[in-house]
């Protein structure tokens, strides 16, 4: 029995918990390679075609077509899984699309006690209506604050980008990628996209900030970004961990089966030791 299997069974025995790596399994054990999207913000023209395609694909109301909506930074919402923000840095504005990052080891999926939030084998992180009990622990845990909750519905859902999982299953590409007129978005295997991103940086080092956002952030994400300006100027909060977020509660989870097996033995021993002769 290997270490993980041990902890799994020990944990389950006490109805507790276990492996911290739904995503890692995919990469390390070489089962299936994750898909990803590369966002090249140096190419993006801010046309918001991706926003409209996303809304249409998932049956949301058509977004406000007035570009004035970009005057303030927007976050994805319960009716918009993907939004484009304009950042006025330097002479030309820079546009960056924001949506679920589809982490390799997502905090939300590891936080979910019903596996409603699930890292699929292919890479998209999806939410499943029939499992979710609406505790919103995924929202507390997500370092990018992506999952959104329908507070005004008696049958609320969690809304977030699912990387057009249904389209991928039919062999398609995400709606936003398909809609992009300038190839600012590319879809493919994550490792291929990382190679492509590095190629673009090395071919044109003057126009790219070194580094690919998402290569290491949060332990690696399914959305990868290239930019000509520092990433923290594009609304990416600094201080994101480079290790995966489930890693943060791993030590605690590993201690659980230990406490679960040692405590009763210790307590019983103390109880016996304090027993009076007359008992």
């Amino acid at each position, binding site marked *: 029995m290997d270490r993980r299997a041990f902890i799994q069974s020990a944990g389950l025995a006490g109805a507790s918990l276990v492996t911290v790596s739904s995503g890692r399994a995919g990469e390390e054990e070489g089962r299936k390679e994750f898909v990803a999207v590369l966002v090249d913000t140096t190419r993006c023209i801010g046309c918001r075609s991706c926003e409209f395609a996303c809304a249409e694909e998932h049956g949301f109301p058509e977004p406000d077509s007035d570009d004035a909506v970009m005057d303030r930074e927007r976050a994805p919402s319960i009716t918009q899984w993907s939004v484009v923000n304009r950042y006025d840095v330097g002479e030309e504005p820079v546009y960056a699309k924001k949506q679920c990052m589809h982490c390799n080891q997502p905090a939300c999926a590891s936080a*979910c006690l019903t596996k409603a939030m699930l890292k699929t084998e292919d890479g998209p992180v999806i939410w499943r209506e029939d499992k979710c009990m609406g505790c*919103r622990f995924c929202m507390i845990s997500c370092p990018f604050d992506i999952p959104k909750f329908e507070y005004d519905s008696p049958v609320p859902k969690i809304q977030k980008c699912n990387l057009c999982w249904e389209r991928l299953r039919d062999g398609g590409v995400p709606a936003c990628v398909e809609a992009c007129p300038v190839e600012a978005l590319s879809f493919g295997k994550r490792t291929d996209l990382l190679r492509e991103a590095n190629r673009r940086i090395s071919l044109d080092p003057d126009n790219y900030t070194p580094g690919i956002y998402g290569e290491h952030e949060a332990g690696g994400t399914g959305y990868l970004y290239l930019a000509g300006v520092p990433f923290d100027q594009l609304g990416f909060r600094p201080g994101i961990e480079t290790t995966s977020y*489930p890693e943060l509660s791993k030590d605690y989870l590993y201690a659980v089966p230990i406490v679960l097996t040692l*405590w009763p033995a210790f307590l019983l021993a103390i109880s016996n030791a304090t027993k009076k002769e007359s008992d």
Partner: protein
Amino acid sequence: MASNSTSLTLLANESRRFGRFLLSELKPKGKLLTPFNVVAAVILLVAAILLVIRFARGLGATTNLSQDFPWGIWIGFDVITGVAFAGGAYVITFMVYVLRLEKYHPIVRITVLNGFLAYVFYAGALLFDLGRPWNVINPIIGNSFGVSSVMFLVAWHFMLYMITEFIEFSPAVAEWLGWKKVRKFLGSLTLGAVIFGITLSTLHQSGLGALFLMAKDKIHPLWYTEFLPILFFVSSIFAGLSMVILEGSISQRVFKSQMSPLHRVGHDEIVRGLARVCAGTMYVYFFLKVLVFVHGQHWTYIMTPMGFWFLVEMIIFVLVPVRLYTQAVRFGTMGVIRVASVLTLIGIVLNRLNVSVIAYKWYAPERYIPSWMEIEITLAIIVAELIVLRWIVNRMPILREPGGEPTDGVGSRPESGEIRHKEPTQWVTST
């Protein structure tokens, strides 16, 4: 045939008598129109209406929760603080059944009952906060075990611990119903339940802290630490005991008729012992907090608003009460112990709310402030718990001596009259 029909009549008579007993017990005792009852009725009625609105129109209709603040006081206060307050049960059962400190036996039942009701009501209040409560059974029936989730552990442990506490408490129910054989059997389960209960409590008290481990960038560095689980566990010890102290001093007034004069005299001695344990664990807690603070090199944050707020929590609501406890134990002043317990409990409320609500996203431009409806429903949960507590204490042998019941099982009282004479607080209570 004849004997058969006789036994049937007997059975029918017996069940009719039992039914009458239950009915008579269900009736309220004492005056109905007391100020407390009137206020309680109003609070419960308003809460019932609000809950209808909440389930008809969603969480947004009654709460100020937002995409930035998915957890408010229903989680931060009702569940996370409420469970810390209920920690007295596992500490007292540890002292009485594992360490066999018989001095504390008289408060076992009331403490376990309080703990049990706290879990039922405060953890039960979680159902109001869940967006999709009809799926609450999913992590239990096994069609989707999210075993890598700290929440999964907490959910299971809440459920198992409620059962455990009910088993610990069940002898009192059997005594109330006069079921002697059942009482004997339930008494034999106590030690096992206690040991299981302490283990579960260790894990879910710390687990509530572990819930926030993944929110690393979102909680102010003065409160976020990888030691959150340990801090939550250690503080649940003195939080629970402070609640036992405060609750005991209130019980002495409210349930005076239930307590024998001997109990009231012995109670001061018990409280002083608990105050000593509180002081000890609070020193440990304070030391841990200082270690985390120094180790994290957090000096730079002290001169900020959040830094002052941190100092308020640490000095006024940890350092001051721990000093008061220490002083009061030395000089035996009961009033000071009560003040210390109140300060300690406020400190726990602050700490739990800081981690879950106040220091959470301290950088957000829009703060979460609970709506009056969230506060109203929280009040209603407390009121409902108090009503059930009062109903049980006035009927079952919780505080009073159960009139010469035979004892058995773990923790049974020494029968020798000599020992009884020396320790007047001891009598037949729970096992």
